[in-house]
């Protein structure tokens, strides 16, 4: 892409408390239009807290989040939900709900409680089902789906919101390798339309392959930030995960192949 890209989401010196415990401190992040930003880090590092704070679901204890240049707290909640969508792997709708109905609830921020869904809404729902590759499951009930299929339905709900910022917490957690590759291709398609995508991903190799930029979160702080291969090669990454990470150049691959060993 050419020219400077718009900053969609940014934080400055953000701190977040859960209960009385500070779980995130001094976090400054920027997400650009069309960017693929991946957040990695060990368990309990504060990744999910970061995503929820960016989505406006957790009040910052210090600092602020800005969405399209405007403080997140000033956004009316429905307007925010038209610009920013969150999909996590925890979300589950009622078992008897049909996939298409679940995805259509993503149009709530556009239509509110009373306005009936129109042609643009149905088109957005159909497109989201198409993009996530679950159009064939549209008439199935959630209770009959596998965990991976339910996760794709959650992502489709987020896409049906037609956001400019897409925040994902472990979008590939329950997906087999074929669906993982398809998921990241889907995200690239969304990014091509200018949507900024920030995703928490556990699989470091997959994260490095997909992302343009990587954010390493450890013990509630940003431990490293930059090109994925550089972040993974850093001492900070080894320290955060407690493992030795080595990237091996393989002639037939565009990305290094990673190996991980426990550190004595």
């Amino acid at each position, binding site marked *: 892409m050419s020219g400077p890209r718009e900053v969609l989401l940014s934080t400055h010196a953000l701190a977040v408390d859960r209960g009385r415990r500070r779980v995130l401190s001094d976090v400054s992040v920027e997400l650009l239009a069309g960017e693929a930003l991946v957040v990695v880090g060990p368990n309990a590092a504060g990744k999910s807290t970061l995503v*929820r704070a960016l989505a406006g*679901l957790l009040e910052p204890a210090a600092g602020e989040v800005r969405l399209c240049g405007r403080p997140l707290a000033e956004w009316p*909640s*429905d307007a925010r*939900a038209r610009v920013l969508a969150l999909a996590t792997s925890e*979300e589950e709708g009622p*078992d008897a709900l049909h996939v298409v109905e679940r995805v259509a609830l993503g149009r709530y921020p556009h239509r509110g409680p009373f306005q009936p869904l129109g042609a643009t809404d149905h088109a957005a729902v159909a497109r989201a089902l198409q993009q996530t590759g679950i159009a064939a499951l549209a008439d199935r009930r959630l209770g009959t789906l596998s965990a991976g299929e339910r996760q794709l339905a959650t992502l489709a709900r987020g896409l049906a919101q037609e956001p400019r910022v897409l925040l994902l917490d472990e979008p590939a957690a329950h997906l087999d390798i074929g669906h993982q590759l398809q998921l990241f291709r889907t995200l690239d398609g969304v990014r091509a339309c200018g949507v900024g995508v920030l995703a928490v991903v556990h699989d470091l190799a997959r994260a490095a392959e997909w992302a343009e930029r990587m954010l390493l979160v450890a013990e509630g702080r940003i431990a490293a930030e930059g090109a994925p291969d550089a972040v993974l090669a850093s001492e900070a990454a080894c320290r955060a995960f407690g493992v030795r990470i080595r990237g091996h150049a393989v002639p037939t691959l565009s990305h290094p192949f990673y190996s991980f060993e426990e550190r004595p």
Partner: protein
Amino acid sequence: MTSRGSRLVIPALAGALALALLLATAAGSVPLSFPGVVKALLAKLGLLGDASALGATGETILFTVRLPRVLLAALVGGGLAVVGAVLQAVFRNPLADPGLLGVGAGAALGAVLAVHLGLASAVFFALPLAAFAGALAAVLAVYFIAGASGRASLHGLLLTGIAVSALAGAMTSVLLVATEEFRVKAVLFWLAGGLDGRGWTHVQAAALFVLSGVALLVLLGRPIDVLSLGEQEAASLGLPVRATRLGLLGLAALVAGAATAVAGSVPFVGLMAPHALRPLVGPLSRRLLPAAFLGGAVLVVLADLGTRTLSARVELPLGALTACVGAPYFLLALRANEGRG
């Protein structure tokens, strides 16, 4: 999106309700002829000239005893079923029931208090009004005690509901013991649940709260659906979660409180009707709530008919009858639910 079969469920339920209403008005200790009832009703509505099909006694029974009672049964059943459906969505638990919020226990306490203070015999309509106030007070207490610890989590609400119900139950027992014996009987009748001796005043009062509450809940169908996705997803979709939940619980308490005030405790209707209909019409409120209203109405109209006709000697308590059907249903549903999870 919807199979052809599920579109027929609501018309079929409406037909079943019409049939159940007619059957329940005709049957009883003094049976009225089926065509006679239909003719008399049509005449009353001004659709038929000849109104003499039942005779004077028959007409009196139909219009002052049977009809208000049967309509009240429909309102109570429909209202409780809609409340059950809403609570099941809000608590994301297919087995939630109005009783969980302390509605029944609060209403009982209110009723016993009115009887104990002698209000019930002194002031017309004091017992149902006190029951209604008790139900609302219990739900408010549950909500604010559960919410006091920061945010009202769903488990917190349910467990607080159990605690508040137990406390209200204890206070009810104490009051019952302290109440003069001749007054206790009135309260026992009410506690057992039933529609004996209810008249048009009860129908009007119940209709006002139940119908307006149900209409508002149906209107709020989409927020209910969004809330059923869970707090986090609902908030991320821009729904003001706490305000919406408080509003929905308030409306639910209003409807369930009104139903309980006129009929006493009628357990398990709010659980059974929506639980049985959800697989047929799906969980979206715009179809589930109307279906639950009709299904719950059929259920209680038939149950009330059962209380009047199953035994020739005594009238059975309505709440006991719904519990006899509802408790086994609940246990089977619980097993199915756990077997799946």
